[in-house]
């Protein structure tokens, strides 16, 4: 498979929900086996998904293989306004984060090659029509697809290293909200594609004995840059007030940069018996790089352009670095059947009073289950289920006013997410 066909597959299927198991708009759904184990993987060498969790461990993966997985992320967001407006719910949609790995190398060689395609960041929400926060956001769809050619080398039988060139092969953003025009509600849609950018993913894996593995990995930041995004308006007045209102909305292009932050992880894997594998991970995502979300507006006829009368817009984010702790295990019931369970706790990147409807983030508790069944010697099926509950979070208009974050909405958010997943692996 070429990178190009991979991208086509990715473009069609890939999308991710921010509620998919990590803070901010991060997505930690790297591989079906790992998902079933609470998302651990840095100290393990389970399969080709090591390219995502710890490229250093790829050389320790015994078999060559190809695997593919898809999740259905169902985020259920509820909102209750500070003003009494009843409970609002998200328009339910299913997004399908997707991953693909192919890893191979000569038998008994010290090295392995591989290519990985995955979605480490993404976000999709759509609120019900007419909700209180309509002038902050009605809909967002943010996609990021990374393609990662990887090389891993076992320096000794105990120590291996690996690195991958991380390519932001596909990135897109679609952001929509209503406009509070004096003639009634209008609507604005910003839609753009990110330029191709490069980063890296590197890791070290140390396995001093059959019973213990230790890993560290680092995934670099990539800035998703949109240069000539398109702006579309609907509902601007066409009659008497057009001359007064419309000069405030002349931009038809925008530029923006969104950081997809770096992640540093450390993990331990333990095999108390042949049948049992346990993993513990800790990950730190460097969200503090996300200070503001800035848009620069322009027009393709004349250069200058404004939205709401302004040539730029800045929305304060002030994210904080976020830690996540994960634990999980796998038990081989038979040669063919493995069962898994895990849990994790992710701390929110979003500070109090900074919660936006596009990422109604909060600390999250996550529980997972998984299983694999080896259909034939070479072909196996993996399945996982992840449930996460976000802590209920409230901000008042007074909080927003005090922090200067009044471009969002006052009230209480609560989110649950249900993420079933299924995958196939083929060894050769």
């Amino acid at each position, binding site marked *: 498979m070429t990178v190009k066909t991979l991208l086509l*597959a990715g473009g069609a*299927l890939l999308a991710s929900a921010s509620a998919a198991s990590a803070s901010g708009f991060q997505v930690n759904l790297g591989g079906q086996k790992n998902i079933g184990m609470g998302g651990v993987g840095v100290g393990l060498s389970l399969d080709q998904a090591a390219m995502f969790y710890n490229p250093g461990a790829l050389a320790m993966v015994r078999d060559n293989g*190809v695997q*593919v997985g*898809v999740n*259905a992320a*169902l985020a*259920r967001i*509820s*909102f*209750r*306004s*500070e*003003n*009494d*407006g*009843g*409970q609002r*719910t998200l328009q*339910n949609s*299913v997004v*399908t984060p997707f991953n693909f790995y192919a890893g191979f190398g000569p038998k008994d060689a010290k090295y392995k090659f591989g290519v990985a395609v995955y979605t480490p960041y993404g976000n999709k929400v759509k609120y019900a029509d007419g909700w*209180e*926060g309509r*002038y*902050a956001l009605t809909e967002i769809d943010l996609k990021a697809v990374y393609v990662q050619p990887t090389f891993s080398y076992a320096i000794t039988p105990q120590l291996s290293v690996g690195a991958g060139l991380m390519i932001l092969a596909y990135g897109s953003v679609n952001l929509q909200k209503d406009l*509070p*025009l*004096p*003639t*009634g509600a209008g609507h604005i849609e910003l839609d753009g594609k990110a330029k191709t950018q490069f980063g890296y993913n590197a890791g070290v894996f140390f396995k001093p004995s059959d019973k213990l593995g230790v890993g560290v990995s680092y995934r670099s930041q990539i800035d998703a840059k949109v240069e000539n995004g398109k702006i579309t308006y609907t509902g601007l*007045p*066409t*009659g*008497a*007030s057009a*001359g*007064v*209102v419309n000069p405030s909305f002349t931009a038809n292009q925008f530029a923006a940069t969104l950081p997809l932050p770096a992640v540093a992880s450390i993990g331990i894997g333990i095999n108390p018996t042949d049948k049992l594998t346990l993993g513990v991970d800790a990950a730190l995502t460097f969200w503090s790089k996300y200070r503001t979300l800035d848009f620069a507006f322009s027009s393709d006829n004349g250069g200058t352009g404004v939205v709401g009368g302004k040539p730029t817009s800045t929305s304060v984010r002030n994210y904080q670095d976020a830690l996540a702790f994960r634990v999980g295990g796998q038990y081989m019931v038979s040669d063919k059947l493995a069962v898994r369970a895990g849990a994790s706790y992710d701390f929110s990147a979003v500070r109090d009073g900074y919660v936006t409807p596009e990422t109604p983030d909060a600390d999250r508790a996550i529980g997972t289950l998984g299983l694999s069944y080896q259909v034939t010697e070479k072909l196996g099926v993996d399945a996982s289920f992840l449930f996460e*509950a976000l802590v*209920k979070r409230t901000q008042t*208009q007074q909080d*927003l*006013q005090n922090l200067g974050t*009044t*471009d*969002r*909405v*006052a009230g*209480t958010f*609560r*989110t*649950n997410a*249900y993420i*079933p997943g*299924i995958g*196939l692996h*083929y060894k050769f």
Partner: protein
Amino acid sequence: MKLYIKRSAPVLGLLGLGLAGCQPDIDAPNMSPGSADFSSYVAVGNSLTSGYSDGGLYNEAQATSYPAILAQQFAKTGKGPAAFVQPSFSAARKDGSGFVKLLVVNGALTPVAPSPGPPPGGNNFLGEQVAYTNNTLPAPPLGSGQPELEAYTGGQPDNLGVPGISVLSADRTAASTGSAALDAATRATAGAYGNVNPFFQRILPAADRGTKDYVTYIGQKNATFYTCWMGNNDVLTYATGGGVSNLAANPFSGLTDSTSFGRGYRNIVNTISKGGTVKGVCANIPNVANIPYFTTVTVGAVLAAYKAANPAIANIYVTARTSATTTATAARVATATDLLTLTAQSYIAANPGVGASPLAPIPSQYVLDPIEQTEVLNRTTQLNNIIAKTARQYKAGLADMNSFFNDIVARGVVTNAVSNSATFASGNLFSLDGVHPTPRGYAVVANEFIRVINVTYGASVPTVNPNDYRGVLFPL
């Protein structure tokens, strides 16, 4: 492999549908009246309480008056009024006294004011269904000769807001200036106030017209909770008149002295609160100098417009007070500290070149000069001290609308990601008369009342989303 993914996707989708019911619930906040009893809520006040907007009183504006919003929110505590009666106009005359509309005139959006009175002399050209009869109120003295409005015929209203009423004109015992002749005229006119003010006349039973003053009228209500927002017109009438009063023609056109105000205000609160036994909230008087009525037309803008037509024009001249101790006025060069009234705009349009020379200065009634501004501000502070003291005396909460509006003028107010400001027309909060709020502005005011009520009485009355209420209506 792709095929497998394709086939499993519908399965995942079905699983998704099964889970779609698993929406997390957020408990509704507890709504409580606290120690207050809203079962009979009565609103005492002037135009702000009546819902007056865009230079008029009409059914739509009444429906979004802050008392109407409060009553609706009080009801949610389970101890609110079953009905809150507004003295509405009949459906066929729903536009009441008529109101200013934003229309395109000569290619520009312009506020167009109605002509008062009944059709055809009235404002048929705005297409409004006004409620004027063909009668006029009794002529002066003890009357104003203004066009009469259709009488309100429903049950006794709970919204007792009367546009134009002041504390001085509400109480036939209030005046105590020391001038016996003036006091007698003031008291007599307050006693006959139904013959002066068509908005008061229309809600009075026929027998009470010209005989019952406002304090007596509100004493007929048995409130369990009240709001009282009175006093604005005791400074506003003088200020919007550019600091020009003619007490002989209208005894209520000046700044009310603090002794008369204190007497009248205590009478009002004592009456509606039944001597302090009924709970309520008093609101004080916002500083009138920073409302759009005074901040929209600026000396700089008038000068710039004149200069554009004739570059030789270097100054604008106004008629202004010469000293704080006399009412004498003289023409002088206008400065940025002179506040021109919103009405100056149409006066200048009708009198081209006015103000361009010291021989034809802008008349005093269109200018609130710094001497008059200081007068108004000082009097507002005095009257607000009386309001605060009276509220304490009668155990009422105090809504500090003066601070609240100062804050809005300084910073605007953002409501669920929508910016609102005190800017004329486009700021959403002030209606086209430059003085009274829009429905959005009244919603913001209602939320401030609710905040004070919740703090004062340990209640948890929910606020409203101001974005559900309109700002200035722009034509499509």
